[in-house]
Protein backbone atom coordinates (compact mmCIF):
# COMPACT_ATOMS: atom_id res chain seq x y z
CA UNK A 1 0.00 0.00 0.00
CA UNK A 2 1.29 3.45 -0.87
CA UNK A 3 -1.44 5.22 1.08
CA UNK A 4 -4.95 4.82 2.43
CA UNK A 5 -7.86 7.20 2.32
CA UNK A 6 -10.17 6.54 5.26
CA UNK A 7 -13.53 8.15 4.60
CA UNK A 8 -15.09 6.99 7.84
CA UNK A 9 -12.85 8.62 10.42
CA UNK A 10 -15.89 9.80 12.34
CA UNK A 11 -17.48 6.33 12.56
CA UNK A 12 -16.17 4.24 15.47
CA UNK A 13 -13.49 2.95 15.78
CA UNK A 14 -12.51 5.97 13.66
CA UNK A 15 -9.22 7.42 14.67
CA UNK A 16 -7.97 4.26 16.36
CA UNK A 17 -8.41 2.48 13.06
CA UNK A 18 -6.51 5.27 11.29
CA UNK A 19 -3.68 5.00 13.81
CA UNK A 20 -3.44 1.25 13.26
CA UNK A 21 -3.34 1.69 9.48
CA UNK A 22 -0.80 4.50 9.76
CA UNK A 23 1.77 2.06 11.12
CA UNK A 24 2.02 0.50 7.65
CA UNK A 25 1.16 3.26 5.19
CA UNK A 26 0.46 7.00 5.05
CA UNK A 27 -3.16 7.69 5.96
CA UNK A 28 -5.48 10.47 4.94
CA UNK A 29 -8.53 10.54 7.17
CA UNK A 30 -11.64 12.48 6.49
CA UNK A 31 -14.82 13.17 8.38
CA UNK A 32 -17.31 15.96 9.00
CA UNK A 33 -15.60 17.21 12.15
CA UNK A 34 -13.58 20.43 11.90
CA UNK A 35 -9.85 20.02 11.61
CA UNK A 36 -9.30 22.18 14.67
CA UNK A 37 -11.06 19.56 16.77
CA UNK A 38 -9.34 16.57 15.26
CA UNK A 39 -5.80 17.80 14.82
CA UNK A 40 -4.84 17.52 18.52
CA UNK A 41 -6.03 13.89 18.51
CA UNK A 42 -3.74 13.07 15.60
CA UNK A 43 -0.54 14.73 16.77
CA UNK A 44 2.59 12.66 16.15
CA UNK A 45 0.65 10.05 14.21
CA UNK A 46 1.54 11.33 10.75
CA UNK A 47 -2.13 11.11 9.77
CA UNK A 48 -3.44 13.91 7.65
CA UNK A 49 -6.99 14.91 8.49
CA UNK A 50 -9.42 16.57 6.10
CA UNK A 51 -12.82 17.92 6.98
CA UNK A 52 -15.15 16.60 4.31
CA UNK A 53 -18.73 15.48 4.08
CA UNK A 54 -18.64 12.82 1.42
CA UNK A 55 -22.39 12.80 1.02
CA UNK A 56 -21.71 15.83 -1.22
CA UNK A 57 -20.54 15.07 -4.71
CA UNK A 58 -18.23 18.07 -4.94
CA UNK A 59 -16.45 17.18 -1.73
CA UNK A 60 -15.99 13.58 -2.87
CA UNK A 61 -14.21 14.82 -5.98
CA UNK A 62 -12.22 17.38 -4.01
CA UNK A 63 -10.83 14.74 -1.68
CA UNK A 64 -10.18 11.99 -4.21
CA UNK A 65 -8.64 14.13 -6.95
CA UNK A 66 -7.00 16.57 -4.56
CA UNK A 67 -5.13 15.38 -1.48
CA UNK A 68 -5.58 11.68 -2.24
CA UNK A 69 -4.13 12.02 -5.73
CA UNK A 70 -1.27 14.20 -4.50
CA UNK A 71 -0.41 11.61 -1.87
CA UNK A 72 -0.59 8.74 -4.36
CA UNK A 73 -3.20 6.89 -2.29
CA UNK A 74 -3.89 3.44 -3.70
CA UNK A 75 -6.58 2.18 -1.27
CA UNK A 76 -9.85 3.57 0.01
CA UNK A 77 -11.65 2.44 3.14
CA UNK A 78 -15.25 3.55 3.19
CA UNK A 79 -18.01 2.99 5.74
CA UNK A 80 -21.56 4.24 5.62
CA UNK A 81 -23.15 6.26 8.36
CA UNK A 82 -24.82 3.77 10.68
CA UNK A 83 -26.77 6.42 12.52
CA UNK A 84 -30.50 6.02 11.76
CA UNK A 85 -31.10 9.66 12.70
CA UNK A 86 -28.75 11.13 10.11
CA UNK A 87 -29.93 11.81 6.56
CA UNK A 88 -29.77 8.68 4.43
CA UNK A 89 -27.76 8.67 1.24
CA UNK A 90 -25.21 5.97 1.77
CA UNK A 91 -26.12 4.17 -1.44
CA UNK A 92 -25.71 7.26 -3.64
CA UNK A 93 -22.46 8.21 -1.91
CA UNK A 94 -21.02 4.75 -2.32
CA UNK A 95 -22.04 4.42 -5.94
CA UNK A 96 -20.30 7.61 -6.94
CA UNK A 97 -17.27 6.90 -4.79
CA UNK A 98 -16.74 3.64 -6.64
CA UNK A 99 -17.18 5.32 -10.03
CA UNK A 100 -14.67 8.01 -9.07
CA UNK A 101 -12.20 5.44 -7.76
CA UNK A 102 -12.49 3.50 -11.00
CA UNK A 103 -11.40 6.62 -12.90
CA UNK A 104 -8.72 7.51 -10.39
CA UNK A 105 -5.13 7.15 -11.58
CA UNK A 106 -3.70 5.69 -8.38
CA UNK A 107 -6.49 3.92 -6.49
CA UNK A 108 -6.59 0.15 -6.98
CA UNK A 109 -8.25 -1.13 -3.84
CA UNK A 110 -11.67 -0.32 -2.39
CA UNK A 111 -12.83 -1.67 0.95
CA UNK A 112 -16.40 -1.16 2.07
CA UNK A 113 -16.98 -1.71 5.79
CA UNK A 114 -20.64 -2.62 5.80
CA UNK A 115 -22.79 -4.28 8.38
CA UNK A 116 -24.37 -7.66 8.96
CA UNK A 117 -27.61 -5.81 9.75
CA UNK A 118 -28.38 -6.17 6.05
CA UNK A 119 -29.06 -9.89 6.51
CA UNK A 120 -32.59 -11.21 6.87
CA UNK A 121 -33.61 -13.10 9.99
CA UNK A 122 -36.55 -15.48 10.27
CA UNK A 123 -37.59 -18.91 11.53
CA UNK A 124 -36.75 -20.56 8.21
CA UNK A 125 -33.40 -18.86 7.83
CA UNK A 126 -30.11 -20.47 8.83
CA UNK A 127 -28.86 -19.66 12.32
CA UNK A 128 -25.34 -19.35 10.97
CA UNK A 129 -25.21 -16.52 8.48
CA UNK A 130 -22.71 -16.99 5.71
CA UNK A 131 -22.18 -14.73 2.72
CA UNK A 132 -24.91 -16.52 0.73
CA UNK A 133 -27.56 -15.66 3.28
CA UNK A 134 -30.42 -13.57 1.84
CA UNK A 135 -30.31 -9.87 2.56
CA UNK A 136 -33.30 -8.02 3.98
CA UNK A 137 -35.80 -7.60 1.15
CA UNK A 138 -38.63 -6.14 3.24
CA UNK A 139 -40.18 -3.14 1.54
CA UNK A 140 -41.54 -2.06 4.90
CA UNK A 141 -38.07 -1.90 6.45
CA UNK A 142 -37.18 1.61 7.67
CA UNK A 143 -35.37 3.93 5.24
CA UNK A 144 -32.02 3.74 7.05
CA UNK A 145 -31.97 -0.05 6.71
CA UNK A 146 -33.07 -0.04 3.09
CA UNK A 147 -30.34 2.51 2.43
CA UNK A 148 -27.73 0.24 4.02
CA UNK A 149 -28.97 -2.75 2.03
CA UNK A 150 -28.89 -0.72 -1.18
CA UNK A 151 -25.38 0.53 -0.44
CA UNK A 152 -24.22 -3.02 0.23
CA UNK A 153 -25.76 -4.26 -2.99
CA UNK A 154 -24.31 -1.33 -4.94
CA UNK A 155 -20.83 -2.35 -3.80
CA UNK A 156 -21.55 -6.00 -4.61
CA UNK A 157 -22.75 -5.03 -8.10
CA UNK A 158 -19.23 -3.87 -8.96
CA UNK A 159 -17.54 -7.07 -7.82
CA UNK A 160 -15.74 -8.71 -10.69
CA UNK A 161 -16.75 -6.06 -13.21
CA UNK A 162 -14.50 -3.29 -11.98
CA UNK A 163 -10.77 -2.72 -12.31
CA UNK A 164 -10.76 -2.06 -8.57
CA UNK A 165 -10.17 -4.88 -6.12
CA UNK A 166 -13.38 -4.44 -4.11
CA UNK A 167 -14.04 -6.15 -0.80
CA UNK A 168 -17.30 -5.81 1.09
CA UNK A 169 -16.99 -6.52 4.79
CA UNK A 170 -20.28 -7.32 6.51
CA UNK A 171 -19.31 -6.80 10.11
CA UNK A 172 -21.05 -8.02 13.23
CA UNK A 173 -22.38 -5.21 15.36
CA UNK A 174 -19.60 -3.14 16.85
CA UNK A 175 -19.63 -2.83 20.61
CA UNK A 176 -17.79 0.42 21.23
CA UNK A 177 -18.41 3.85 22.59
CA UNK A 178 -20.28 6.01 20.09
CA UNK A 179 -21.28 3.08 17.88
CA UNK A 180 -24.77 3.31 16.42
CA UNK A 181 -25.83 -0.34 16.36
CA UNK A 182 -29.32 -1.66 16.97
CA UNK A 183 -28.25 -3.65 20.02
CA UNK A 184 -26.62 -0.52 21.39
CA UNK A 185 -29.95 1.27 21.09
CA UNK A 186 -31.71 -1.63 22.72
CA UNK A 187 -29.30 -1.57 25.65
CA UNK A 188 -29.77 2.17 26.02
CA UNK A 189 -33.55 1.86 26.21
CA UNK A 190 -33.92 1.03 29.90
CA UNK A 191 -35.37 -1.38 30.92
CA UNK A 192 -34.36 -3.65 28.06
CA UNK A 193 -37.47 -5.45 26.88
CA UNK A 194 -37.31 -8.74 25.01
CA UNK A 195 -39.94 -11.23 23.81
CA UNK A 196 -41.10 -13.69 26.44
CA UNK A 197 -39.92 -17.22 25.74
CA UNK A 198 -37.23 -16.18 23.27
CA UNK A 199 -33.60 -15.50 24.01
CA UNK A 200 -31.63 -15.77 20.76
CA UNK A 201 -27.87 -15.53 20.58
CA UNK A 202 -26.26 -12.53 18.92
CA UNK A 203 -22.69 -11.84 17.90
CA UNK A 204 -20.77 -8.67 18.74
CA UNK A 205 -17.36 -7.47 17.66
CA UNK A 206 -15.01 -5.36 19.72
CA UNK A 207 -13.01 -2.54 18.20
CA UNK A 208 -9.69 -4.41 18.47
CA UNK A 209 -10.99 -7.24 16.31
CA UNK A 210 -12.64 -4.86 13.88
CA UNK A 211 -9.43 -2.88 13.44
CA UNK A 212 -7.50 -6.09 12.86
CA UNK A 213 -10.05 -7.37 10.35
CA UNK A 214 -9.98 -4.14 8.35
CA UNK A 215 -6.18 -3.98 8.44
CA UNK A 216 -5.85 -7.56 7.25
CA UNK A 217 -8.42 -7.05 4.51
CA UNK A 218 -6.70 -3.89 3.28
CA UNK A 219 -3.30 -5.56 3.19
CA UNK A 220 -4.63 -8.49 1.20
CA UNK A 221 -5.92 -8.21 -2.33
CA UNK A 222 -8.94 -10.39 -1.58
CA UNK A 223 -12.04 -9.32 -3.48
CA UNK A 224 -15.59 -10.37 -2.67
CA UNK A 225 -17.99 -10.35 0.24
CA UNK A 226 -16.70 -11.33 3.66
CA UNK A 227 -18.47 -11.63 6.97
CA UNK A 228 -16.53 -10.27 9.92
CA UNK A 229 -17.39 -12.13 13.07
CA UNK A 230 -16.78 -10.99 16.63
CA UNK A 231 -15.49 -13.09 19.51
CA UNK A 232 -18.58 -12.63 21.68
CA UNK A 233 -21.63 -14.80 20.99
CA UNK A 234 -24.21 -14.61 23.74
CA UNK A 235 -27.97 -14.41 24.30
CA UNK A 236 -29.79 -11.12 24.67
CA UNK A 237 -30.46 -11.69 28.37
CA UNK A 238 -26.76 -12.16 29.08
CA UNK A 239 -25.84 -9.16 26.97
CA UNK A 240 -28.11 -6.99 29.09
CA UNK A 241 -26.66 -8.54 32.26
CA UNK A 242 -23.09 -7.84 31.09
CA UNK A 243 -24.07 -4.22 30.59
CA UNK A 244 -25.65 -4.07 34.02
CA UNK A 245 -29.09 -3.41 32.49
CA UNK A 246 -32.32 -4.85 33.74
CA UNK A 247 -33.96 -7.08 31.16
CA UNK A 248 -37.69 -7.72 31.16
CA UNK A 249 -39.35 -10.41 29.05
CA UNK A 250 -42.86 -9.54 27.81
CA UNK A 251 -45.32 -11.23 25.45
CA UNK A 252 -44.72 -10.07 21.92
CA UNK A 253 -47.94 -8.02 21.44
CA UNK A 254 -47.28 -6.14 24.68
CA UNK A 255 -43.69 -5.59 23.65
CA UNK A 256 -44.67 -4.10 20.29
CA UNK A 257 -47.08 -1.76 22.04
CA UNK A 258 -44.51 -0.76 24.67
CA UNK A 259 -41.92 0.17 22.07
CA UNK A 260 -44.52 2.04 20.01
CA UNK A 261 -45.41 4.08 23.06
CA UNK A 262 -41.77 4.75 23.75
CA UNK A 263 -41.31 5.96 20.18
CA UNK A 264 -43.95 8.63 20.85
CA UNK A 265 -41.69 10.09 23.51
CA UNK A 266 -38.76 10.39 21.11
CA UNK A 267 -36.21 8.36 19.15
CA UNK A 268 -35.94 4.91 20.63
CA UNK A 269 -35.02 1.36 19.77
CA UNK A 270 -36.83 0.22 16.60
CA UNK A 271 -38.43 -3.02 17.74
CA UNK A 272 -40.43 -3.62 14.58
CA UNK A 273 -37.30 -3.84 12.47
CA UNK A 274 -35.54 -6.06 14.96
CA UNK A 275 -38.52 -8.28 15.79
CA UNK A 276 -37.37 -11.32 13.74
CA UNK A 277 -33.84 -10.98 15.08
CA UNK A 278 -35.13 -10.83 18.66
CA UNK A 279 -36.94 -14.12 18.12
CA UNK A 280 -34.58 -16.14 15.96
CA UNK A 281 -31.16 -14.50 16.18
CA UNK A 282 -28.41 -15.31 13.72
CA UNK A 283 -24.64 -15.29 13.99
CA UNK A 284 -22.35 -14.37 11.12
CA UNK A 285 -19.92 -17.03 9.95
CA UNK A 286 -16.40 -15.81 9.29
CA UNK A 287 -14.95 -18.76 7.39
CA UNK A 288 -14.53 -16.86 4.12
CA UNK A 289 -12.59 -14.06 5.85
CA UNK A 290 -10.35 -16.62 7.52
CA UNK A 291 -9.62 -18.31 4.21
CA UNK A 292 -9.12 -15.08 2.23
CA UNK A 293 -7.10 -12.90 4.57
CA UNK A 294 -6.58 -14.85 7.77
CA UNK A 295 -8.96 -12.97 10.01
CA UNK A 296 -10.33 -14.80 13.02
CA UNK A 297 -11.81 -13.09 16.08
CA UNK A 298 -9.54 -13.37 19.08
CA UNK A 299 -10.12 -10.40 21.36
CA UNK A 300 -13.26 -10.67 23.49
CA UNK A 301 -14.99 -7.50 24.50
CA UNK A 302 -13.88 -6.06 27.82
CA UNK A 303 -17.22 -5.43 29.45
CA UNK A 304 -17.31 -2.31 31.56
CA UNK A 305 -19.12 -2.81 34.87
CA UNK A 306 -21.60 -0.04 34.10
CA UNK A 307 -21.58 -0.55 30.36
CA UNK A 308 -20.72 2.08 27.82
CA UNK A 309 -21.97 5.60 27.88
CA UNK A 310 -24.76 6.16 25.34
CA UNK A 311 -23.72 7.52 21.97
CA UNK A 312 -24.22 11.24 21.46
CA UNK A 313 -27.21 12.06 19.25
CA UNK A 314 -24.89 13.91 16.90
CA UNK A 315 -21.15 13.49 17.10
CA UNK A 316 -19.75 16.97 17.05
CA UNK A 317 -20.50 20.62 16.93
CA UNK A 318 -20.01 20.54 13.18
CA UNK A 319 -22.22 17.49 12.97
CA UNK A 320 -25.15 19.42 14.40
CA UNK A 321 -25.11 21.82 11.51
CA UNK A 322 -25.57 20.03 8.18
CA UNK A 323 -24.84 23.23 6.28
CA UNK A 324 -21.58 23.68 8.10
CA UNK A 325 -20.66 20.04 7.47
CA UNK A 326 -21.37 20.45 3.79
CA UNK A 327 -19.38 23.67 3.45
CA UNK A 328 -16.40 22.62 5.45
CA UNK A 329 -15.13 24.64 8.37
CA UNK A 330 -13.40 27.98 7.70
CA UNK A 331 -9.81 27.43 6.83
CA UNK A 332 -10.15 23.74 5.97
CA UNK A 333 -8.57 22.23 2.88
CA UNK A 334 -11.96 21.71 1.32
CA UNK A 335 -13.09 25.22 2.12
CA UNK A 336 -10.03 26.51 0.32
CA UNK A 337 -10.59 24.19 -2.66
CA UNK A 338 -14.30 24.93 -2.93
Amino acid at each position, binding site marked *: MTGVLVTCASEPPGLELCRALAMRAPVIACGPEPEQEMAPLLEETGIRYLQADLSHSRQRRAVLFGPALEAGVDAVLHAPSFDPHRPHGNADTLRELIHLCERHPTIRRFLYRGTADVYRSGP*GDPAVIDEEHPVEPDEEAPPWLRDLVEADQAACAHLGGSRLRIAVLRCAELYAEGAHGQLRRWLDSQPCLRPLGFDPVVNLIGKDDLIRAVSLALRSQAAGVFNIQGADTLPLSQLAAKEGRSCLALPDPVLSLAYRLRALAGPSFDYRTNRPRFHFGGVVCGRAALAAFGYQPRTPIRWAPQGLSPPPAVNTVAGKDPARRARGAPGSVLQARA
Partner: protein
Amino acid sequence: MTPADPALALSQLVLGPRERRRFSEIRHDGGVHGYDAFGLHPEGVAAGLARLLPLYRAWFRVASRKIGNLPAKGPAIVVANHGGYLPFDGAMLWTDIVLNSEPPRVPRFVMDNFVLRIPVVGTAFARSGSVGGNRRNVHHLLEDGALLVVFPEGTDGIGKPWSQRYKLQSWSVGHAEMAIRHGAPVVPVAILGPDEQFPFAVRLPIRAFGAPFIPLALPPFPLPVRYRIEYGEPIELHRRWLPEEADLPAVVGEAAALVREKLQGLLDQARKEPS
Protein backbone atom coordinates in the same frame (compact mmCIF):
# COMPACT_ATOMS: atom_id res chain seq x y z
CA MET B 1 -34.32 -19.90 27.93
CA THR B 2 -31.08 -18.89 29.53
CA PRO B 3 -29.61 -21.72 31.56
CA ALA B 4 -31.16 -20.15 34.61
CA ASP B 5 -30.60 -20.97 38.24
CA PRO B 6 -33.63 -23.28 38.69
CA ALA B 7 -32.55 -25.40 35.73
CA LEU B 8 -28.99 -25.54 37.00
CA ALA B 9 -30.16 -26.46 40.48
CA LEU B 10 -32.28 -29.24 38.98
CA SER B 11 -29.33 -30.54 36.98
CA GLN B 12 -27.14 -30.60 40.08
CA LEU B 13 -29.86 -32.46 41.94
CA VAL B 14 -30.64 -35.03 39.27
CA LEU B 15 -27.32 -35.66 37.57
CA GLY B 16 -24.84 -37.93 39.26
CA PRO B 17 -21.04 -37.78 39.18
CA ARG B 18 -20.90 -39.96 36.04
CA GLU B 19 -23.09 -37.60 34.03
CA ARG B 20 -21.22 -34.57 35.27
CA ARG B 21 -17.92 -36.16 34.32
CA ARG B 22 -19.27 -36.83 30.83
CA PHE B 23 -20.14 -33.18 30.41
CA SER B 24 -16.55 -32.23 31.07
CA GLU B 25 -15.52 -34.54 28.21
CA ILE B 26 -17.91 -33.10 25.63
CA ARG B 27 -16.11 -31.32 22.81
CA HIS B 28 -17.85 -28.05 22.19
CA ASP B 29 -16.92 -24.94 20.26
CA GLY B 30 -18.59 -22.50 22.60
CA GLY B 31 -16.43 -19.40 22.23
CA VAL B 32 -15.98 -16.94 25.05
CA HIS B 33 -19.39 -17.29 26.67
CA GLY B 34 -19.97 -20.99 26.06
CA TYR B 35 -22.64 -20.52 23.35
CA ASP B 36 -22.07 -21.79 19.86
CA ALA B 37 -23.57 -20.03 16.85
CA PHE B 38 -26.73 -22.14 17.08
CA GLY B 39 -27.30 -21.35 20.75
CA LEU B 40 -26.02 -24.62 22.24
CA HIS B 41 -24.67 -24.27 25.77
CA PRO B 42 -23.37 -27.10 28.00
CA GLU B 43 -25.57 -25.88 30.85
CA GLY B 44 -28.53 -26.06 28.50
CA VAL B 45 -27.60 -29.67 27.74
CA ALA B 46 -27.30 -30.41 31.47
CA ALA B 47 -30.66 -28.78 32.16
CA GLY B 48 -32.29 -30.75 29.33
CA LEU B 49 -30.82 -33.99 30.58
CA ALA B 50 -31.98 -33.29 34.13
CA ARG B 51 -35.54 -32.84 32.89
CA LEU B 52 -35.53 -35.91 30.68
CA LEU B 53 -33.62 -38.36 32.85
CA PRO B 54 -36.62 -39.30 35.05
CA LEU B 55 -38.67 -39.99 31.90
CA TYR B 56 -35.80 -41.95 30.39
CA ARG B 57 -35.15 -44.11 33.44
CA ALA B 58 -38.47 -44.40 35.24
CA TRP B 59 -41.29 -43.74 32.77
CA PHE B 60 -40.13 -45.15 29.44
CA ARG B 61 -37.38 -47.39 30.95
CA VAL B 62 -35.30 -47.01 27.82
CA ALA B 63 -33.02 -49.84 26.76
CA SER B 64 -30.63 -49.30 23.87
CA ARG B 65 -28.37 -51.61 21.91
CA LYS B 66 -25.29 -51.18 19.75
CA ILE B 67 -24.72 -47.49 20.43
CA GLY B 68 -21.13 -48.24 19.47
CA ASN B 69 -22.33 -48.00 15.86
CA LEU B 70 -22.24 -44.22 16.25
CA PRO B 71 -18.92 -42.87 14.95
CA ALA B 72 -16.69 -41.63 17.76
CA LYS B 73 -15.84 -38.48 15.81
CA GLY B 74 -16.43 -36.73 12.53
CA PRO B 75 -19.66 -35.96 10.72
CA ALA B 76 -22.47 -38.50 10.82
CA ILE B 77 -26.22 -38.51 10.28
CA VAL B 78 -28.51 -40.54 12.51
CA VAL B 79 -31.78 -41.38 10.75
CA ALA B 80 -34.64 -42.58 12.93
CA ASN B 81 -38.33 -43.44 12.68
CA HIS B 82 -40.75 -40.93 14.14
CA GLY B 83 -44.07 -41.47 15.89
CA GLY B 84 -46.22 -40.97 18.94
CA TYR B 85 -47.91 -37.60 18.34
CA LEU B 86 -45.51 -35.83 20.71
CA PRO B 87 -41.76 -36.10 20.11
CA PHE B 88 -40.82 -38.17 23.15
CA ASP B 89 -38.96 -40.49 20.77
CA GLY B 90 -36.62 -37.64 19.87
CA ALA B 91 -36.20 -36.72 23.51
CA MET B 92 -35.34 -40.29 24.50
CA LEU B 93 -32.93 -40.72 21.60
CA TRP B 94 -31.22 -37.44 22.53
CA THR B 95 -30.93 -38.58 26.16
CA ASP B 96 -29.58 -41.96 25.15
CA ILE B 97 -26.87 -40.50 22.95
CA VAL B 98 -25.86 -37.88 25.52
CA LEU B 99 -25.73 -40.51 28.26
CA ASN B 100 -24.15 -43.45 26.47
CA SER B 101 -22.13 -42.40 23.41
CA GLU B 102 -18.39 -42.92 23.73
CA PRO B 103 -16.74 -40.46 23.69
CA PRO B 104 -19.69 -38.29 24.74
CA ARG B 105 -21.30 -36.40 21.86
CA VAL B 106 -24.18 -33.95 21.84
CA PRO B 107 -26.50 -34.88 18.96
CA ARG B 108 -27.72 -31.96 16.85
CA PHE B 109 -31.38 -32.63 16.10
CA VAL B 110 -32.63 -31.08 12.88
CA MET B 111 -36.14 -29.93 13.71
CA ASP B 112 -39.02 -28.46 11.78
CA ASN B 113 -38.79 -24.69 11.63
CA PHE B 114 -42.16 -24.25 13.32
CA VAL B 115 -40.61 -25.50 16.58
CA LEU B 116 -38.46 -22.38 16.67
CA ARG B 117 -41.62 -20.26 16.78
CA ILE B 118 -42.88 -21.88 19.97
CA PRO B 119 -41.95 -19.69 22.96
CA VAL B 120 -39.64 -21.30 25.53
CA VAL B 121 -39.58 -24.61 23.63
CA GLY B 122 -37.63 -23.25 20.65
CA THR B 123 -35.02 -21.65 22.89
CA ALA B 124 -34.75 -24.71 25.16
CA PHE B 125 -34.24 -26.94 22.12
CA ALA B 126 -31.58 -24.60 20.75
CA ARG B 127 -29.69 -24.63 24.07
CA SER B 128 -29.60 -28.41 24.00
CA GLY B 129 -28.29 -28.57 20.45
CA SER B 130 -31.29 -28.63 18.11
CA VAL B 131 -31.21 -26.56 14.95
CA GLY B 132 -33.78 -25.39 12.40
CA GLY B 133 -34.20 -27.62 9.39
CA ASN B 134 -32.53 -25.94 6.44
CA ARG B 135 -29.63 -26.96 4.28
CA ARG B 136 -27.22 -24.20 5.34
CA ASN B 137 -27.51 -25.18 9.01
CA VAL B 138 -26.93 -28.82 8.10
CA HIS B 139 -24.03 -27.91 5.85
CA HIS B 140 -22.31 -25.88 8.59
CA LEU B 141 -22.77 -28.59 11.19
CA LEU B 142 -21.45 -31.36 8.97
CA GLU B 143 -18.47 -29.20 8.04
CA ASP B 144 -17.78 -28.92 11.76
CA GLY B 145 -17.98 -32.71 12.17
CA ALA B 146 -21.26 -32.78 14.11
CA LEU B 147 -23.49 -35.76 14.81
CA LEU B 148 -26.84 -34.89 13.21
CA VAL B 149 -30.18 -36.55 13.94
CA VAL B 150 -33.00 -36.35 11.38
CA PHE B 151 -36.48 -37.80 11.15
CA PRO B 152 -37.09 -37.99 7.39
CA GLU B 153 -40.77 -38.77 7.95
CA GLY B 154 -41.31 -35.40 9.61
CA THR B 155 -44.80 -34.60 10.87
CA ASP B 156 -46.32 -37.32 8.66
CA GLY B 157 -44.51 -39.87 10.80
CA ILE B 158 -45.29 -38.40 14.19
CA GLY B 159 -49.02 -38.07 13.45
CA LYS B 160 -49.63 -41.40 11.72
CA PRO B 161 -52.64 -43.51 12.79
CA TRP B 162 -52.43 -46.61 14.95
CA SER B 163 -52.86 -48.90 11.94
CA GLN B 164 -49.64 -47.53 10.42
CA ARG B 165 -47.47 -47.97 13.51
CA TYR B 166 -43.81 -48.72 12.78
CA LYS B 167 -44.43 -48.34 9.06
CA LEU B 168 -42.29 -45.58 7.62
CA GLN B 169 -44.34 -42.79 6.07
CA SER B 170 -43.40 -40.17 3.46
CA TRP B 171 -39.62 -39.96 3.28
CA SER B 172 -37.63 -36.81 2.59
CA VAL B 173 -34.31 -37.27 0.82
CA GLY B 174 -32.17 -34.35 2.04
CA HIS B 175 -30.24 -36.51 4.51
CA ALA B 176 -28.99 -38.74 1.69
CA GLU B 177 -27.81 -35.79 -0.38
CA MET B 178 -25.97 -34.26 2.57
CA ALA B 179 -24.42 -37.61 3.54
CA ILE B 180 -23.01 -38.10 0.04
CA ARG B 181 -21.87 -34.51 -0.27
CA HIS B 182 -20.11 -34.37 3.09
CA GLY B 183 -18.87 -37.95 3.31
CA ALA B 184 -20.93 -38.60 6.43
CA PRO B 185 -22.00 -42.14 7.33
CA VAL B 186 -25.72 -42.63 7.93
CA VAL B 187 -26.67 -44.57 11.07
CA PRO B 188 -30.23 -45.94 10.97
CA VAL B 189 -31.87 -46.07 14.38
CA ALA B 190 -35.07 -47.95 15.16
CA ILE B 191 -37.08 -46.68 18.10
CA LEU B 192 -39.74 -49.01 19.47
CA GLY B 193 -42.32 -47.70 21.89
CA PRO B 194 -43.43 -44.29 20.66
CA ASP B 195 -46.10 -45.60 18.28
CA GLU B 196 -47.88 -47.19 21.25
CA GLN B 197 -47.66 -44.35 23.75
CA PHE B 198 -50.89 -42.64 22.59
CA PRO B 199 -53.28 -45.38 21.42
CA PHE B 200 -56.26 -43.03 21.27
CA ALA B 201 -55.11 -39.88 19.55
CA VAL B 202 -56.40 -37.73 16.73
CA ARG B 203 -54.99 -34.86 14.71
CA LEU B 204 -56.90 -31.63 15.13
CA PRO B 205 -56.52 -29.54 11.98
CA ILE B 206 -55.55 -26.45 13.94
CA ARG B 207 -52.43 -24.61 12.91
CA ALA B 208 -50.62 -23.01 15.81
CA PHE B 209 -47.07 -21.61 15.59
CA GLY B 210 -46.95 -23.08 12.06
CA ALA B 211 -47.41 -26.71 13.23
CA PRO B 212 -49.51 -28.68 10.73
CA PHE B 213 -51.84 -30.07 13.42
CA ILE B 214 -52.47 -30.21 17.15
CA PRO B 215 -52.64 -33.70 18.68
CA LEU B 216 -55.55 -34.57 20.96
CA ALA B 217 -54.95 -37.72 22.98
CA LEU B 218 -56.52 -39.84 25.66
CA PRO B 219 -55.00 -40.05 28.19
CA PRO B 220 -53.36 -36.63 27.78
CA PHE B 221 -50.00 -38.04 28.87
CA PRO B 222 -48.07 -40.87 27.18
CA LEU B 223 -48.53 -44.42 28.46
CA PRO B 224 -45.44 -45.77 30.25
CA VAL B 225 -44.50 -48.04 27.37
CA ARG B 226 -41.04 -49.51 27.38
CA TYR B 227 -38.77 -47.88 24.78
CA ARG B 228 -36.15 -49.81 22.85
CA ILE B 229 -33.54 -48.05 20.75
CA GLU B 230 -31.61 -50.13 18.23
CA TYR B 231 -28.62 -48.58 16.45
CA GLY B 232 -27.97 -50.09 13.03
CA GLU B 233 -24.74 -50.53 11.12
CA PRO B 234 -23.52 -47.28 9.51
CA ILE B 235 -24.40 -46.95 5.82
CA GLU B 236 -21.58 -45.37 3.87
CA LEU B 237 -23.40 -43.74 0.99
CA HIS B 238 -20.33 -41.67 0.19
CA ARG B 239 -18.41 -44.81 -0.70
CA ARG B 240 -21.02 -45.73 -3.29
CA TRP B 241 -21.56 -42.31 -4.83
CA LEU B 242 -19.28 -39.35 -5.48
CA PRO B 243 -19.95 -35.93 -3.91
CA GLU B 244 -20.68 -34.40 -7.33
CA GLU B 245 -23.45 -36.98 -7.81
CA ALA B 246 -25.28 -35.52 -4.83
CA ASP B 247 -27.02 -33.10 -7.21
CA LEU B 248 -28.61 -35.90 -9.24
CA PRO B 249 -32.21 -36.56 -8.15
CA ALA B 250 -32.03 -40.20 -9.20
CA VAL B 251 -28.93 -40.83 -7.10
CA VAL B 252 -30.31 -39.02 -4.07
CA GLY B 253 -33.64 -40.85 -4.41
CA GLU B 254 -31.91 -44.20 -4.63
CA ALA B 255 -29.67 -43.44 -1.66
CA ALA B 256 -32.61 -42.28 0.46
CA ALA B 257 -34.59 -45.39 -0.50
CA LEU B 258 -31.66 -47.52 0.59
CA VAL B 259 -31.61 -45.83 4.00
CA ARG B 260 -35.37 -46.26 4.30
CA GLU B 261 -35.15 -49.93 3.44
CA LYS B 262 -32.42 -50.52 6.02
CA LEU B 263 -34.35 -48.68 8.71
CA GLN B 264 -37.62 -50.49 7.95
CA GLY B 265 -35.70 -53.78 8.11
CA LEU B 266 -34.19 -52.80 11.45
CA LEU B 267 -37.63 -51.87 12.78
CA ASP B 268 -39.22 -55.12 11.61
CA GLN B 269 -36.40 -57.18 13.06
CA ALA B 270 -36.50 -55.35 16.39
CA ARG B 271 -40.27 -55.89 16.67
CA LYS B 272 -39.80 -59.65 16.26
CA GLU B 273 -37.31 -59.81 19.11
CA PRO B 274 -38.64 -60.05 22.66
CA SER B 275 -38.26 -56.82 24.60
